[in-house]
């Protein structure tokens, strides 16, 4: 898919999120879980957004969820311009009570088949010549 140099925006991979990016490389989608109240959080904040505890642990999620909403993009920005049409989705994870909702593209799918509630799983893409792995979603059959 990426023959030419990857020219889409990539995360900086900040030190405070190292556990997350290491997780992607290990095939895990980790989010901060609060050791005080048990909430799972996405996106990550330095303190729990429920109880404000800073005692959180990067914890692997199931990596599975259901599509909360989606769009088929027909006009893509920058490096995405040649990928159209592509599917962008918000995916709700089962880890509650404040279920993480994670944004990502849905790959290996017929755009016309995508629907709200569709089961998907996280898939990983290692970016050549860059120090980061990113995530997408794919149908979870």
């Amino acid at each position, binding site marked *: 898919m990426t023959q030419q140099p990857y020219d889409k925006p990539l995360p900086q991979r900040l030190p405070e999120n190292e556990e997350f990016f290491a997780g992607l490389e290990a095939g895990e989608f980790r989010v901060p879980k609060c050791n005080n109240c048990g909430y799972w959080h996405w996106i990550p904040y330095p303190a729990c957004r429920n109880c404000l505890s800073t005692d959180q642990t990067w914890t692997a999620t199931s990596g599975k969820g259901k599509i909360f909403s989606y769009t088929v993009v027909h006009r893509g920005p920058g*490096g995405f311009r040649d990928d159209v049409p592509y599917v962008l989705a918000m995916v709700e994870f089962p880890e509650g009570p404040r279920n993480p909702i994670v944004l990502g593209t849905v790959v290996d799918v017929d755009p016309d088949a995508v629907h709200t509630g569709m089961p998907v799983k996280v898939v990983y893409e290692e970016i050549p010549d860059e120090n980061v792995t990113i995530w997408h979603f794919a149908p979870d059959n």
Partner: protein
Amino acid sequence: MSFPQRKAAIVGVYNTKQARMLEGTPWTLALEAIQGALDDAGLKHSDIDGLSSMMYDASLTAQQMWVEQLGGRPMTYTSHGIAGALVTKAAAAIAAGLTNVVCIYFGNAGMRAGPSKQRASQEAAPVVRKAPRVPDWDFNIHGAYMSAWYALWTRRYMDQFNAPYENLAEYPVLARYHATLNPASIMGERGEITVQDVIDSPMISSPLHRLDCSLDNDGGYAILVASAEVAKNCRKAPVWVLGGGEGIYTDFYMSFTNDWINDNGQSVRRASDIAFAGAGVTRDDIDVTGMYDCFPVTMARNIEEMGFCKVGEGHEFIKEGHLKLGGKLPTNTDGGLLSHSHCGNPSGMHVVEVVKQLRGECDARQVKDAKIGAVLSQGYAVHGVAGVSILAKD
């Protein structure tokens, strides 16, 4: 808690020409707008002693430079944010004796907000075909941008409430109709459109078509809020600030949770409830409104969160034509962000239009006997940043 009513009024408003690729800079367009608003009010630049910037990044330095530009006397009040909230807070500051004349100003030239922005920056530097590094959770890593983000909201809203796309597509039709009655609008001269025209326009990010999306153009505007003492000597009749409120949250990706649409509401609900309570008026008292309308779903959620209809019924409210001139809640009579102008940070223009309505200056699009108006400024998605002002003429 009641708002200090009729202690401050909007005494001057001005929109510069709104168009794609205007001559000038953000500074010169804001300056032209300030000069226009001063002339509208019959005030001098040296009367201004409070400044509220609509710039996205209103650094203290930039505010200080504007203080110098406007005559180099210390300002006693500054603020930053979105227009409905800035009008309200200016009125509160005036009532508290902090300031007498507050100038709310904005200008934008040569900025593009849509996907063409990233595209243009890449084409400007074609040699650097390398992945730019962005903050770790930035949505553009995934190919999202503003229209795609609102497309996600729109889809969720449609699925949650069984809202037909065609109902939402009535909003661009209505906005265009209003624009045809506003000679200053960008799209008015292209004439009216139908729901079928919206459906037939190119798909941007499903379900949003091009005609569902805001314009992306240059322009400036300014609004002057003054004390009752100053207002009585101004050129035009005062438009009083009866009440208002602000709500700051965001359901942009950086703070999104699954609790998106619920009966408790978010920023817009909070700001609206404070505004109506403080103003001592009801939703039924409102004759005309200006509401931030970047996409049809925004408008559907606006009227739900402001309490003009129930949650989930906004699309039907639009379909039934209540927002149209002659309807029970005429809204965005200038054509709004889809057909009048979206100049980058356009929320002040909703204030300008409601002020003109309350003054009776709207000619073909005038709402008959408009006495009380409401403005909702908004941003960062439908529950994000909210500012409400309730305005009235004598």
